[in-house]
């Protein structure tokens, strides 16, 4: 153990953004950059290998609200590490892309608060802490939309707030019932995840509680019937918020499913797999279909994001190691690719003043680097092998086919639809006779610097995803073992 | 034994209900306040009866506190009556519907 490991890195990771948020307000928005760099530094120094016994890489446990049996406990394993990296990368991008657009320190302060919430969600090992972070994650972004969004920002913010709040209140209800149930059974009133996991929940109740949690998480993802908030919120939000919503908050939804809903109610899981798979497939097909007919770039990417998230849900439903690893990896991949597409849309809008497909065209002739990157990330999004989305998709499809062939067959239709809408985007934006003015500039250095690491990640995850598959291997194995033991899987 | 506790309670209940009926029926603000006073006194009686029953001073002490609170309440209430009379020209409660939704 060297000295560095003895500092409570996770707690620091979690609380530093809050300090940064204060710093933004008290000093200058540059504090946001320092904070995020520091965070990235900390995250990169976290070791990626756990001990032999458990899959925890780190575990930190502090006293918190003793009365309620709530502790400030944070745990990090391969999966959460991946998510932490994703969060910090996207947070850095979000700050970067907003830098010249929004001058107010409050904006960055809110982003940082949200960052803290997201990290908390990915690390919390205590239900109350999880719930707290879950709300902290969302509210600043709602505020950002309401304050800095487009013309219909208030409605969009409200829609988002109401949808997700309805979900999260159900989640709180489920947590409280679990808490009481566990307390009655053992006499130990505790919110600790490990403790609560051992509660014997009557099957009927477990079904309801699972439904509550599932609803809360799937609204956040969202899968198709629950996605009503998404198009407006994505369209109206500032790009930084859009990419956080799609790149990080959606992941938090899936993360919650994997980390809470499944382990807490393993025996209920088999009753819901078909429903989950159907929801995933509906998302894939419906999202792909709707993406094809959108005329607003941001909405197009938003629906594409829905379609891709459908794959992730499908992978979870497939319930075998391959598909699950694919799903978890895909969380990262989707985060990077979708965020990059949103960033590119913002760049296009910044230059041409429009996001309407009809107004654009021939970008390649004016800004080849921008056009090339749009092409590149579109190819990633449509699942070209060798780029990151393919990695996840093929694992999910292989796994899904292994358990239920029809799921994978319908999923494959989604792959075709992806090609349809992504190529439509490229066709209408990049190719054709240029419609924008002669004077628009190609990407400048800062913008390239923002996108180049993302492109690098796209290639890395597409060509050599092995280290990351190993990272999620243990968590998936542990969860599957847990599920099998508790009757969640044959 | 003087009386069973139940009789004290019943009597207090009678007083209370009588006060309540006045509060509900009368329209003159002053009469309503009188009704409230009676209800308060009914409660005081219960406290005193209980104190005697358990042979414990607390009941009486609470009755005293009650009296003090009642005094405070009634002084404010009467001030309000005066104020209302002055500003609205009436103390008929049926004329006060400022809280109508």
């Amino acid at each position, binding site marked *: 153990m060297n000295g560095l490991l003895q500092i409570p890195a996770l707690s620091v990771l979690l609380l530093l953004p809050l300090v940064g948020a204060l710093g933004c307000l008290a000093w200058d928005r540059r504090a946001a950059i320092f904070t995020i760099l520091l965070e990235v530094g900390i995250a990169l120094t976290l070791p990626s290998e756990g001990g032999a016994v458990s899959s925890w890489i780190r575990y930190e446990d502090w006293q918190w609200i003793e009365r309620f049996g709530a502790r400030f406990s944070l745990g990090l394993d391969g999966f959460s590490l991946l998510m932490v990296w994703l969060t910090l990368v996207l947070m850095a991008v979000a700050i970067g892309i907003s830098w010249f657009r929004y001058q107010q320190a409050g904006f960055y302060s809110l982003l940082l608060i949200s960052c803290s919430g997201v990290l908390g969600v990915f690390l919390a090992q205590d239900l109350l802490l999880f719930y707290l972070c879950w709300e902290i994650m969302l509210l600043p972004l709602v505020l950002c939309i309401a304050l800095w969004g487009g013309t219909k920002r208030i409605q969009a913010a409200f829609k988002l707030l109401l949808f997700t709040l309805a979900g999260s209140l159900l989640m709180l209800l489920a947590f409280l019932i679990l808490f009481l149930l566990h307390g009655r059974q053992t006499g130990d009133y505790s919110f600790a995840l490990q403790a609560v996991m051992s509660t014997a929940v009557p099957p009927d109740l477990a079904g309801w509680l699972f439904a509550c949690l599932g609803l809360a998480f799937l609204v956040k993802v969202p899968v198709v019937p629950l996605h009503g908030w998404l198009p407006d919120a994505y369209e109206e939000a500032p790009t930084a918020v859009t990419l956080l919503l799609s790149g990080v908050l959606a992941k938090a939804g899936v993360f919650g499913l994997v980390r809470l809903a499944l382990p807490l109610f393993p025996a209920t899981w088999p009753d819901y797999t078909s429903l989950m798979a159907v929801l995933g497939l509906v998302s894939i097909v419906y999202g792909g279909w709707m993406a094809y007919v959108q005329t607003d770039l941001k909405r197009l990417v938003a629906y594409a994001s829905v379609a891709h998230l459908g794959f992730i849900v499908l992978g979870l439903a497939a319930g075998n190691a391959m598909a699950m690893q694919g799903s978890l990896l895909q969380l990262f991949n989707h985060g990077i690719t979708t965020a990059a597409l949103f960033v590119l849309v913002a760049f296009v809008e910044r230059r041409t003043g429009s996001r309407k497909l009809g107004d654009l065209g021939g970008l390649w002739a004016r800004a080849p680097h921008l056009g090339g990157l749009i092409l590149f990330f579109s190819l990633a999004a449509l699942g070209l092998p060798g780029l990151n989305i393919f990695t996840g998709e093929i694992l999910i499809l292989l796994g899904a086919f292994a358990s239920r062939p029809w799921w994978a067959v319908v999923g494959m239709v989604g792959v075709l639809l992806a090609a349809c809408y992504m190529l439509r985007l490229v066709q209408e934006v990049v190719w054709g006779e240029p419609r924008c003015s002669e004077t628009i500039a190609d990407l400048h250095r800062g913008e390239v610097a923002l996108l180049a690491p993302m492109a690098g990640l796209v290639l890395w995850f597409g060509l050599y995803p092995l280290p990351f598959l190993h990272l999620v291997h243990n968590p998936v194995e542990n969860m599957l073992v847990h599920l099998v033991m508790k009757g969640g899987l044959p | 034994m003087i009386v069973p506790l139940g009789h*004290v309670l019943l009597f207090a209940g009678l007083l209370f209900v009588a006060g309540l009926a006045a509060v509900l029926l009368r329209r003159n603000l002053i009469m309503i306040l009188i009704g409230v006073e009676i209800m308060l006194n009914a409660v*005081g009686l219960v406290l005193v009866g209980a104190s005697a029953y358990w042979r414990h001073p607390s009941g009486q002490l609470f*009755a005293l506190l009650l009296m003090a609170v009642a005094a405070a309440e009634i002084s404010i209430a009467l001030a309000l009556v005066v104020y209302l009379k002055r500003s609205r020209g009436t103390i008929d409660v049926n004329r006060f519907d400022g809280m109508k939704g």
Partner: protein
Amino acid sequence: MATLLFYILAAIVLMAVLLCLTRNNPVHAVLYLVHALFGLALLYFLLGAPMLAAWQVILYAGAIMVLFLFVIMLIDPDLFEKKASRGRFRWLPVGFLSGALLACGGVLIMMDPLAAGGIVRYRLSPRAFGRALFDEYGLAVEILSLILLFAAVGAFHLGRRHKGKEDAS
């Protein structure tokens, strides 16, 4: 003897209360109320609370009732309620409610085994009263005194004539 006294006093109090509440003239009502309060004071004495009985006379029958009279005098016009405007059976629901409440409460009281227990003679001397009050509820007394202060200030404030406001309303 004491038992009989209790019932007699109770009857007097009840009668006074009913008469008080049915008067149209508030002055009459207050006078009947004074009677009822005196009766209550005697009941207190009977139930072993001489100190409280004294307070009842001084505070209620004395101070508060005088306050009432002052106020009534202060606002003399239309002291008399007009005849019931909303039909003759306006009292019906309230009557039903009162009866029902009484019935429920009465049954509940009678069903309670406690209620069958009798009150035996008991006396809390003023000294004991004071001791108990200040030993155990000293803080409460302080708080109450504050409340009374606030009430006094409030009443003063409400009673003041606001020149502008009054004209406006």
